[in-house]
């Protein structure tokens, strides 16, 4: 018994298109997983060609593709005990830029803090200590420019030994410091014993 083995004409282009879409999506997924560097010449980065600093502009969004983090950035000040205040709002989708630091992209250091968890669930920075040297952090500012930073180091410090001088040092390229909690859970006023600190420089 003989029969045509080719599919009806209408289904073939749809099938091919779906396959190509699948391949494209796989490419994007793989590309993001491996953290390929961006194409600065095509899309442009926030900094000038020589990594020159940006003007002052308040941050609005932060994105860390390798961790799947996408969150808004609000302003925070100092808490009464002298610590950097934690941001209010949804802890899963909100981070806080410390208002007495540079804005992201400016010369100096911009400090952004975020919750690692609440009492009931993980929060926006719950995977922050998985960051590694070379990973990308992008901060969108009010002027709609995006400052891109590459991670230099990830360290843990006791909360009471916060490396103030290192964090606020102003030398060379603009920097970004991300802070969250980690280490042992002590409870009480202190909560977690340590801070996890990510140092990154403007790409």
């Amino acid at each position: 018994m003989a029969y045509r083995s080719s599919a009806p004409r209408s289904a073939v282009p749809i099938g091919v298109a779906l396959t190509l879409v699948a391949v494209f999506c796989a490419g994007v997924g793989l590309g993001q997983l491996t953290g390929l560097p961006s194409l600065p010449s095509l899309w442009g980065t926030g900094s000038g060609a020589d990594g020159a600093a940006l003007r002052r502009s308040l941050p609005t969004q932060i994105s860390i593709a390798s961790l799947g983090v996408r969150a808004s950035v609000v302003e925070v000040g100092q808490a009464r005990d002298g610590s950097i205040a934690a941001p209010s709002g949804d802890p899963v989708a909100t981070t806080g830029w410390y208002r007495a630091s540079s804005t992201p992209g400016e010369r100096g250091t911009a400090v952004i803090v975020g919750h690692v968890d609440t009492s009931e669930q993980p929060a926006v920075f719950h995977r922050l200590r998985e960051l590694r040297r070379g990973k990308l952090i992008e901060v969108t500012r009010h002027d709609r420019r995006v400052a891109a930073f590459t991670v230099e180091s990830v360290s843990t410090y006791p909360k009471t030994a916060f490396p103030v001088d290192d964090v606020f040092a102003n030398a060379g390229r603009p920097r970004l410091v991300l802070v969250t909690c980690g280490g042992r859970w002590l409870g009480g006023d202190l909560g977690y014993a340590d801070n996890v600190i990510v140092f990154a420089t403007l790409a």
Partner: protein
Amino acid sequence: MRSWRNLLGIVGLFLLLGLTLAPGIAQAARAQAASGVQAASAQNVWVEVNPSTVTAGRHVVVRADCGDNSTGATVTSPAFGPVVLKPLDTYLQAEALVGASTREGGYDVRLACRNGPTATTTMWVVNRPEQRPTMGPHTGGGFLAKGGTGGRLAHRLSGPTGWLVGAGMALTAAIALGLVSTRRAARATRAVRPERPDRRRSVT
């Protein structure tokens, strides 16, 4: 066969396209912002201080655009006296030192271009050492320490996982469509009498 090679080539091209565009897609919003190169028109004369909020005793970088930047400019301020700006790239730039004894407050920074135009900006001096935090933020509630794991589903699906899930779904749909179509074609032509004299050859 040549058509298979072409197909493989196209598939490979799409995969390569996806890989190459992956970071670009992640930065999709940036496409608008990227066009904002800081090019000032001839009418737009400006001066800026970076950082604009600074501790007494620190250096700042003053940058300006006079339209015609070949002749240079001078910047004056109660916070750091006259500074001569020199051409750097397409702008004028110089470093200035804010004296350690400068009081807190806002200070005018005035630009005087040698070809005429002027501009002003404000610089803020703060005494940061007193304002520096003494401790890291309290940004935890204990959930993870008490054995909690993982993240919300929405959290997980953002980023690379979401794209790979989408790829899997599209591929499954393509395969399913292919299977359904060939079965339907086979069923339809089985109804035709087998000994057709002008039977068509399938093209592969």
